[in-house]
């Protein structure tokens, strides 16, 4: 416990001199559909938004609204059906190391130790330099894994694996970091711990980050800008500037009136979306609508 608080306090050791690059991604009128003819399913339709430079943009939306598809497009693993995605004015045509993706479940290589996993990128590019090795040590300390550097991923806890993954992505110093629900499946305490680790890392660099989630608390805690998605086919329905001060700490953020107001605003937009798809026959939306009406009438199972 002591070690963790120590690591969360302002940089106990100095980061090696790494210049943070940051880029901006512009998504213009992007559509993506799968299948052909009668079976065409449009997942994203005419979607436009900007991932602003040096900001942490969080995208939130109901599950199955095309967020993961969008991430595959941004990463360049798939091509959009129409529209354009540009990074600093350059069109994205395939995967590149300027954009790094952190996946939903840990994609750490189980056959490599924590340290080797982190050093994977630099070694892959023939950059096994002293600077990168120092950076690896620094990141290990920053995510509280110095004592676990020689362990294999199956020996780490879920939260440790996600932190190792963050470090593995950050050492490559990407222009944009793309995170696809990286803390999904963690229990709520480790999740909150991850938020603090992650926002600490972000606050230090202010690298451009794009973070996708379904968790409203996570979204508000982390975001500079909050993009709210519509139901499928996905579009950005609203943008909320989350002007909470940084550095953010859990206790502070959740007692904050402004944070509560933002949360209510976001929820009401999500509610409108859910209502729309509910009337369109979606079963998944029904849960959200019911929960929302209980919350607003104060008769929910968890009264506050």
């Amino acid at each position, binding site marked *: 416990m002591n070690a963790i608080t120590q690591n969360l306090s302002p940089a106990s050791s100095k980061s090696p001199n790494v210049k943070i690059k940051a880029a901006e991604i512009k998504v213009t009128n992007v559509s993506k559909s799968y299948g052909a003819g009668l079976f065409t399913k449009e997942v994203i339709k005419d979607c436009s938004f900007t991932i602003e430079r040096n900001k942490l943009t969080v995208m939130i939306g109901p599950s199955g609204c095309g967020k993961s598809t969008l991430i595959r497009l941004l990463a360049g693993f798939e091509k959009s059906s129409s529209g354009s995605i540009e990074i600093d004015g350059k069109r994205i045509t395939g*995967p590149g*190391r300027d954009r*790094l993706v952190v996946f939903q479940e840990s*994609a750490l*290589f189980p*056959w*490599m130790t924590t340290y080797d996993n982190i050093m994977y*990128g630099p070694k*892959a590019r023939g950059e096994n330099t002293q600077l990168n090795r120092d950076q690896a040590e620094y990141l290990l300390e920053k995510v509280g894994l110095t004592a676990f550097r020689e362990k*294999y991923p199956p020996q780490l806890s879920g939260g440790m694996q996600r932190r190792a993954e963050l470090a593995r992505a950050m050492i490559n110093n990407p222009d944009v970091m793309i995170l696809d629900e990286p803390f999904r499946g963690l229990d709520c305490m480790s999740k909150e711990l991850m938020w603090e680790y992650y926002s600490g890392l972000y606050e230090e660099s202010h690298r451009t980050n794009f973070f996708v989630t379904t968790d409203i608390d996570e979204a508000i805690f982390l975001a500079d800008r909050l993009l709210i998605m519509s139901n499928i086919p996905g579009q950005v329905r609203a943008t909320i500037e989350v002007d909470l001060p940084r550095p953010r700490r859990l206790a502070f953020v959740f007692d904050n009136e402004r944070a509560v107001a933002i949360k209510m605003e976001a929820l009401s937009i999500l509610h409108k979306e859910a209502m729309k798809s509910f009337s369109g026959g979606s079963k998944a939306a029904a849960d959200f609508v019911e929960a929302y009406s209980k919350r607003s009438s104060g008769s929910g199972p968890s009264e506050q």
Partner: protein
Amino acid sequence: MNAKRLRKALFNRSKLRAVIAIFVFLVLWEIGSRSKEWFGFAVPWIGHVPAPTAVVVAWYGLLGDPGYWQSWYMSTLRVLAGFFAAMVVGIPLGLFMAVNRTFNGLVFPSFEILRPIPPLAWVPASIIFWPSQELSIAFVTFLGAFFTIVINVLGGAKSIDPRYFQSAQSMGSSQWDVFRRVVLPATLPSIVVGSAVGMGITWEVVVAAEMISGGGGSGGSGGGLGFFIWNSYVGGSYEQIVVGMISIGIAGFISSELLRKLGSYLTPWLRKR
């Protein structure tokens, strides 16, 4: 400390159990084979099998016989030759089939037709194909391990999580780098399993091949364990048949154990939980 002691106790208990099990098995066998002289009636099947004590006596006599050790040596040599040839050909073939779709499309159909043919069905053909008896036996043992290794490697490499490739790619890996540092280690557990199974089949096959082919050129002493068993049968020495059988069991056990050790050394991430 406490956990260590507990583990040690468990380990010892399972070892003890194994020793008891083998001992009881031997005692039942002894009683079964001697039932005619002791109780006046023969237990079916076991009544015809030499008793363990008789086998041990025969074995003791063989320990000083260079022909017996020569049989061990010949069979081991053939197994190793066939096995290593199967690894050298099978692992790259399986990997290449997994990586290259066109190659897979060209090779897989023929492979799947040849695979179900039992290695022993190859014995006559391989005697005709290969110039020497030795080569034909090695070839049949090779086949025994080959198909198993290829199928395991292919399956292992094909079931690699695509996210590993995606993250490697987005970290700037070249194709060669992905192959060397992702495909190869990710397939290693399947290679180990395929090799262990293949090794077992190799011992099954070599013995049968030796029996059928008459066990190599150098007459009775150079024939390997399979020929040793057959020769004992022809010569009416039933104790020696059992000695030969148990020898093969021991040989198979030792080679599997060595492979398991090597495999666990090569895949430390599976070992340390």
